[in-house]
């Protein structure tokens, strides 16, 4: 519990730390401008002189920042600015001129000497970086009155503008330049890298998991933002020069970004309606087309207010819609997600508005972390997506575990069932076997022992008779034991074993045994019980041969027919009358046994010998 609490508080601490770092970063520009003076009041004159014009030129007062679109709309070409300032004494440290924005071709002169230039006059090419620092040669600045000239060239399709200028210690202004570059370039690069990375990663995941629509919208939002940065930051001057194209690309990307943001918010709020989503996409495209149409086809015809409204509609409307959606989902979505998303959204909208204002009055300076304003939103969006993705994975895993548990339970249950069935079967088998052995004992050895006992008790039996009776008992017991050996559906070893047992006795009587067996098909009827029946039949047959027929040879032969096999036991004895009482009973017994195993017994007896045929079914 304590650990968990610590983990939670640690997490919050980390969040607070990150927020503090952001605030510090934003606060950083506040402590700029040490040891520098800002030039805001100056004079302006049009003219293409290559050297600073003298006092005879038609200088007019001007205030910086100076936006030509406002102060002299439609003006193009060369112009000069002049600023006078005084220094209490000649500086002894390196000095410089610094401009936060200088995106036109310009040259800086201090006391008549050029100290720096951006771009090339007459050549619409490099516009230079956003912020510029020009070092002033030592000794150029004097005690008392100094003058700074700026030569400007405004090429067609470009807006003439001059931002505030600062003059002061090179070291301090160098830091200001670094800050400016960080604000303008590095933040853009950070946003670009993060947005591109998140977008690409999200997209690659979405590609495989199409059902993660929210992830898809997030990725597309991030990618649209990532694409905005290079266009917005003049990474490709060639594109920036094509104002119209750049503006169109920018608008399209912005519209795309906001469209995906709205779609994301819809999903976030829990409204999944693909038709509505398609409609929103169409509406945004229509909005963009309308804006294009108004700007390029009806420029000057329509009221600028309408244009402004439509332009605003491309982002203010979806931005507001997304905000409303998030607000609406305050009740439905978890607060832990809604609140950060709401805050991030507010930051992004505010930043967006500030950026829009700033875009039109770019020279005003002020908050320049424009490219960072989308980052919190992006991060929160990504966090929510990953949170929900993780939650759905957790749910799936939980479900899997549950399922596995249920399967395991079923398996255990099945196993128990199986064991129960197997136990029952085993018990059944034991019971059946016990019944068989009981009836067998009754039939066989029990009866034999009782008759032997009768003989002994009557005192009528000779020693040999008792021995013979007991031997019969043992023989029968051995048959029973032999029958317990698994036959594996093979009759030959069963026959072989009988022969092995009986042959010494036949030999003792001088009876030869001809063994004419061949391979036999499998007999499925050879259960231990049936094996015993077959053995008893054959034993009885041999006993008959031994006792009654006076034979000299016994043939045992096997043969195979359709549906069964036949075992023939043929002797060359004198034969017997099947209807004689004792033999008749034995024969009836043998037939009964044959029927029990599903077979058939035939006996032919003549004075030339007896043949007993036992037919056993293969099926």
């Amino acid at each position: 519990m304590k650990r968990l609490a610590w983990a939670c508080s640690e997490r919050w601490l980390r969040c607070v730390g990150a927020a503090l770092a952001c605030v510090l970063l934003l606060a950083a520009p506040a402590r700029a401008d040490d040891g520098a003076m800002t030039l805001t009041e100056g004079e302006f004159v049009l003219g293409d002189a290559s050297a600073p014009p003298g006092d005879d030129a038609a200088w007019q007062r001007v205030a910086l920042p100076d936006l030509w679109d406002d102060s002299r709309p439609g003006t193009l070409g060369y112009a000069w600015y002049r600023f006078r300032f005084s220094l209490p004494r000649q500086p002894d440290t390196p000095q410089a001129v610094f401009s936060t924005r200088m995106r036109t071709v310009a040259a800086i002169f201090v006391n008549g000497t050029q100290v720096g230039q951006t771009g090339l006059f007459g050549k619409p090419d490099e516009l230079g970086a956003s912020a510029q620092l020009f070092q002033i040669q030592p000794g150029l600045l004097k005690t008392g009155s100094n003058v700074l000239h700026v030569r400007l060239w405004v090429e067609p399709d470009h807006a003439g503008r001059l931002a505030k200028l600062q003059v002061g210690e090179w070291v301090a202004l160098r830091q200001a330049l670094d800050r400016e570059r960080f604000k303008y370039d590095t933040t853009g690069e950070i946003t670009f890298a993060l947005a591109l990375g998140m977008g690409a990663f999200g997209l690659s995941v979405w590609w495989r998991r199409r059902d993660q629509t929210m992830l898809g919208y997030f990725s597309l939002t991030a990618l649209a933002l990532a694409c905005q940065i290079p266009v917005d930051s003049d990474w490709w001057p060639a594109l920036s020069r094509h104002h119209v194209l750049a503006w169109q690309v920018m608008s399209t990307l912005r519209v795309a970004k906001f469209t995906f943001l709205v779609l994301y918010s819809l999903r976030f709020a829990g409204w999944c309606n693909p038709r509505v989503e398609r409609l929103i996409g169409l509406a945004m495209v229509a909005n963009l087309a309308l804006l294009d149409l108004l700007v390029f086809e009806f420029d000057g015809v329509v009221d600028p207010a309408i244009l402004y409204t439509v332009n605003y509609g491309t982002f203010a409307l979806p931005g507001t819609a997304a905000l409303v959606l998030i607000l609406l989902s305050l009740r439905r979505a978890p607060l832990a997600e809604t609140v950060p998303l709401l805050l991030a959204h507010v930051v992004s909208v505010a930043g967006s508005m500030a950026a829009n204002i700033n875009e039109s009055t770019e020279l005003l300076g002020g908050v320049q972390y424009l490219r960072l304003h989308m980052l919190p939103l992006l991060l929160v969006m990504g966090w929510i997506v990953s949170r929900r993705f993780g939650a759905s994975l957790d749910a799936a895993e939980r479900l899997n575990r549950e399922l596995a548990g249920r399967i395991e339970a079923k398996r255990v249950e099945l196993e128990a069932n199986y064991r129960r069935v197997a136990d029952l079967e085993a018990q059944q088998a034991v019971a059946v076997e016990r019944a068989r052995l009981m009836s067998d004992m009754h039939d066989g050895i029990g009866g034999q022992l009782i008759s032997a006992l009768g003989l002994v008790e009557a005192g009528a039996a000779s020693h040999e008779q008792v021995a013979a009776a007991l031997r019969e008992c043992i023989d029968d017991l051995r048959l029973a034991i032999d029958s317990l050996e698994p036959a594996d559906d093979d009759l030959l070893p069963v026959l072989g074993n009988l022969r092995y047992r009986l042959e010494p006795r036949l030999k003792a009587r001088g009876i030869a045994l001809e063994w004419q067996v061949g391979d036999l098909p499998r007999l499925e009827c050879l259960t231990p019980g049936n094996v015993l029946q077959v053995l008893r039949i054959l034993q009885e047959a041999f006993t008959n041969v031994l006792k009654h027929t006076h034979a000299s040879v016994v043939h045992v032969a096997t043969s195979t027919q359709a549906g069964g096999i036949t075992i023939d036991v043929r002797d060359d004895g004198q034969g017997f009358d099947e209807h004689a009482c004792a033999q008749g009973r034995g024969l009836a017994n043998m037939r009964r046994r044959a029927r029990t195993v599903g077979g058939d017994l035939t006996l032919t007896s003549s004075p030339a010998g007896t043949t007993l045929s036992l037919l056993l079914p293969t099926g």
Partner: protein
Amino acid sequence: MSTTTVTVVEDDAALLARFCSIVAQSPELSLLAAAGDIASARQALQGGAPDVLLTDLGLPDGSGIDLIRETSARHPATDIMVVTVFGDERHVVDSIAAGATGYILKDTPPEEFVGLILQLRAGGSPISPAIARQLLRRMRSAEAPAPDTTPAGAHGAARLLSARESEVLGLIAKGFNFAEIARLLAVSPHTITAHVKKIYQKLAVHSRGEAVYEATRMGLL
């Protein structure tokens, strides 16, 4: 010609007396010792190893199988015969695996009894079809533990049993006697009995190996 010395181990006094008298009355045999349990049998064997050891399996102080195993290890020249009531393959095959090379039924008539001992001494081991089948099954399963190794049956059996030995066992299992098998394979009956004894010894050697393997696996060796 010297007589064959016999030591008899049997816990039933009447049977022991019967066996002893059969041995004593035979001019070809001479009784070396008689014992009623394993302990006295061990003592007797320490005094001198007989040519033939006749032993029961169910003894009051242990299983005759252990006595067979010990004797076959210590006195390889001694032929061991199990005395059994039924000659059922389970008991007999276990005894063979322990080192016995013959078995004899308890109710065997005296003259046959002596004949079987002498036959064993001459290298002829008795075998019933059921025992032959049990041996075939046992050795094949020992050789081919994995049924999916392609020609498992025939190929595996060839490793432990030679092709001829397998053939002989197969014919015995079908009920043919030694004379018939000798005729079928065109060899002398004596060769067949020698085969049988060889097979018995192989099973015993294999079982010992198996026992060592099992012991190693269990960490006893």
